[in-house]
């Protein structure tokens, strides 16, 4: 079997043991390539465990900038004997196996169609280090050094990164550099370097930044003016709340007194977390919580309360595999319906679907404006793939002229002027009524907020007409939301196709790549990336203007399809679902092959796909 030859376009998978200190070494590998100007997209595939179970770090290197998961492995760094068989099976024919050859592996454990690179990592380590912990940690750094030689990664770039990391900690710096050299020297002396897959300097990274979605979303909350954050630990959302705290410590302390311009509470559960958000937002602060599916399930009653009492709330749902505890450390888009219709009774909620950290930042800040303007809960629908992986994206931007939209709030001055206040009266025919913050005025503007029915003056009323009028106004408000939420993004095929594909959120990078693959295969297809619910006219028109529409989702039940059929009254026969829900991020290969196959099955010939 001919060894794979690939420059700046390959996939490396590191198979490690959780808790072995591999994460920072693997990140060093990814960042080194990035610094050479070649885009990488790493993904953590990890267990719900702190120490001892298998964990993987998969790095896709792609000069073309494909950031979705590709599937397949070109180079396996096999550091976990427990997953050896499974990992080896996924190496592409002609691919490479890198392993610790200190203990000989039985011949039967290898494949004859791959290249084997054995380096006695443990032996090298034991020769140079006596401390047990050092032996463990530096083994990781040594293999990174060896890989640098094998893949032709710029040693100076790697060294600079280590210097940045250990600035001021000279001993650590030196010992890390030494470990890199040990691996590098061994590889250079024992193997023909570089091997068939390699890296060369490129210009494809430019000004792009490398950031986790959760951190970007947390930064969006800082920029968007959130002052109250309440949360309960749950994977994969915890790092959002923790990042908010880190950002706030840097950017939100009074320069004179060092006092905090924010309050963060770790609540006793998700019910309390959302309750605190509602209390804070009712009282005029911008507040949010971050959680995942099980947390949203627990918050249902309060979400309905906020919808009906019309209190802003921003909820980040970093989706994971469900139902129940499901796959806590795997990714899915399976909370769409849970959030769109959260709570009992007739409810509908605003959802935003960021595609990457850049949009997570933007939509996070926008969510606070939307929640205040619409006086309702707003969900930012992320997932583990965006939230917990560092992703290359455009730099974050902020216009200093931007002002927070606090929505319709009647101030003391307005009340003094004698403006009429009726908490639930639709004065501007957009479904949104004025509210007041508690404590505004001694005699005017106070009202009682409740989850029970009321009239336009906020007075308790069980009268049918009052109830219906209120529910109709809430629908008008939801219509208003259509105009305010981010518009979908269209992707035209040239020439325009009779078939379209709808996708959203973290599917984006894989889909973008799949468009190319389909086009190359003569199956060019139009695309629409949904960025928000409620759906605007653009979504409806896209569906109407295409004979057949694929919907690509990362859940079993085609939840977005249900929402489209339900909300737009579309004929379900018009849609074909492409569903990926095994917990791994969707790949371009999967999407392209599913769509190609289904085009044939649904009787759409290649010529019919295009007009």
């Amino acid at each position, binding site marked *: 079997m001919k060894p794979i030859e690939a420059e700046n376009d390959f996939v490396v998978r590191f198979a490690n043991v959780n808790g072995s200190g591999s994460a920072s070494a693997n990140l060093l590998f990814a960042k080194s390539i990035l610094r050479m100007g070649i885009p990488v997209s790493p993904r953590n595939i990890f267990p719900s465990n702190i120490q001892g179970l298998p964990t993987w770090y998969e790095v896709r290197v792609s000069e073309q900038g494909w950031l979705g998961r590709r599937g397949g492995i070109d180079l396996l760094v096999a550091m976990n004997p427990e997953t050896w068989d499974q990992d080896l099976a996924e190496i592409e024919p002609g691919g490479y196996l890198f392993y610790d050859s200190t203990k000989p592996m039985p011949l039967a454990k290898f494949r004859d169609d791959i290249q084997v690179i054995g380096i006695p990592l443990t032996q090298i380590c034991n020769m140079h280090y006596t401390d047990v912990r050092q032996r463990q940690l530096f083994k990781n750094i040594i293999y990174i050094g060896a890989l640098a030689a094998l893949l032709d990664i710029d040693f100076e770039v790697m060294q600079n990164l280590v210097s940045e990391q250990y600035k001021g900690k000279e001993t650590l710096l030196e010992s890390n550099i030494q470990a890199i050299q040990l691996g590098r020297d061994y590889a250079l002396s024992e193997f023909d370097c570089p091997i068939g897959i390699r890296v060369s300097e490129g210009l494809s990274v430019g000004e792009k930044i490398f950031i986790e979605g959760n951190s970007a979303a947390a930064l969006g909350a800082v920029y968007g*003016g959130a002052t109250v954050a309440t949360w309960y630990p749950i994977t994969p959302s915890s790092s959002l709340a923790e990042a908010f705290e880190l950002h706030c410590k840097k950017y939100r302390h009074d320069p004179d007194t060092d*006092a905090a311009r924010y309050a963060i509470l770790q609540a006793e559960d998700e*019910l*309390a977390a959302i309750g605190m958000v509602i209390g804070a937002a009712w*009282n*005029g602060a911008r507040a949010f919580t971050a959680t995942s599916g099980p947390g949203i399930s627990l918050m249902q009653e309060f979400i309905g309360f906020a919808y009906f009492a019309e209190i802003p709330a921003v909820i980040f749902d970093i989706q994971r595999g469900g139902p129940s505890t499901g796959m806590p450390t795997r990714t899915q888009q399976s909370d769409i319906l849970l959030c769109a219709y959260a709570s009992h009774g007739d409810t509908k909620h605003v959802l935003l679907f960021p595609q990457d950290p850049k949009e997570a930042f933007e939509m996070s800040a926008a969510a606070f404006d939307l929640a205040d303007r619409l006086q309702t809960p707003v969900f930012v629908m992320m997932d583990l793939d965006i939230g917990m992986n560092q992703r290359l994206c455009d*730099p974050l931007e902020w216009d200093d002229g931007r002002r927070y939209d606090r929505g319709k709030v009647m101030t003391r001055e307005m009340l003094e002027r004698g403006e009429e206040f009726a908490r639930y009266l639709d004065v501007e025919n957009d479904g949104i009524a004025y509210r*007041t913050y*508690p404590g505004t005025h001694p005699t005017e503007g106070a009202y*009682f907020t409740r989850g029970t029915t009321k009239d336009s003056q906020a007075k308790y009323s069980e009268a049918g007409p009052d109830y219906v009028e209120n529910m109709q106004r809430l629908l008008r408000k939801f219509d208003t939301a259509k105009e305010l939420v981010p518009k979908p993004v269209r992707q035209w095929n040239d020439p325009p196709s009779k078939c379209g594909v709808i996708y959203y959120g973290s599917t984006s990078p894989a889909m973008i790549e799949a468009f190319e693959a389909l086009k190359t295969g003569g199956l060019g297809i139009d695309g629409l990336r949904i960025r928000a619910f409620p759906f605007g006219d653009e979504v409806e028109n896209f569906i109407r203007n295409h004979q057949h529409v694929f919907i690509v989702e990362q859940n079993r039940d085609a939840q977005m399809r249900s929402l489209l059929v339900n909300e737009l009254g579309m004929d379900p026969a018009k849609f074909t679902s492409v569903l990926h829900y095994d917990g791994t991020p969707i790949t371009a290969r999967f999407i392209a092959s599913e769509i190609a196959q289904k085009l044939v099955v649904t009787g759409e010939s290649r010529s019919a796909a295009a007009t």
Partner: protein
Amino acid sequence: MTYISKPKLHHPKLPVNALGYTRRDYEGAVSTLCAGCGHDSISAGIIQAFFDLSIEPHRVAKLSGIGCSSKTPSYFLGSSHGLNSVHGRMPSVLTGANLANRDLIYIGVSGDGDSASIGLGQFAHSLRRGVNMIYIVENNGVYGLTKGQFSATADTGTKSKRGVENKDGAIDLVALALQLGATFVARGFSGDKEQLIPLIKAAIEHQGAAFLDIISPCVAFNNHSGSTKSYDYIREHNEIVNRLDFMPGRETITTEYKAGSLREITQHDGSVLKLRKLANDFDAHDPTASMTYLHERAHQGEIVTGLLYIKSEPEELHQHLKTVDAALNSLGEKELCPGHTTLETINDTLR
């Protein structure tokens, strides 16, 4: 429930407080609870306390959960914002509200079903966090709105109106509050306003988590013989540890009580509590002793009322979080948004 507006006519000779407000300015809508309900006496006590302390009604936020007790914020302080949340979750909503604006006074009203059953967790955590609030449980041992089921504070052996005996153990919220670190713990009785009103005033002035359990008999479902939360039973079994006279800090302290029978407690804000000691050697500064005393009396079938514990220098949540003096809801872009240039720097660190 219907909403009834009271006529706004004021008698010209109604007494006014230091702000020039009459007691009527502290009232709310007409109660729709059953005639004779203990909760209405508590609402009256709250009205009197805020009136006496000359607190601007609109600077108070009233929060509640679900149940008969949680309806009562409609019946007092009509010029205050109120929020009737979901069952058992008043404490979290109040906590959030307090985080947003530390300048208002927060009164949370709950019941025994609301706080001891469905909301026991939130009750506990709000107290242990030291949220600056007045947390009142109107405790009648029974679910009123759903017609007479036992709540978690119903005593073992007490009988329901239908004659069913409660076999489950009772939760004593006062004992729990002491254990959880509430910095003000008291129990009152809705039928004893002479004791109740000073307790409410003291709780209002206390700058920390103040918990006030008020036994409030349910005339409809828990006022029969065999009930341990009926008016008769409480009056017969009440052990009053102290009566309180309350002097706000802003007034000159004058007293007509004999020095030997008083114990003065200066609160953080300078207000002074005077405990008229009825029980020998009762020390409201020692939570362990209070707990022991509470259990001893309970063992004798007595319900202890009065101020059981107060910490003179309480810490509250905002102190723990080191938040700015200004209310968080008053901060704007200037204070909150780090701006474009900072973002450019952040971008640089991510390359």
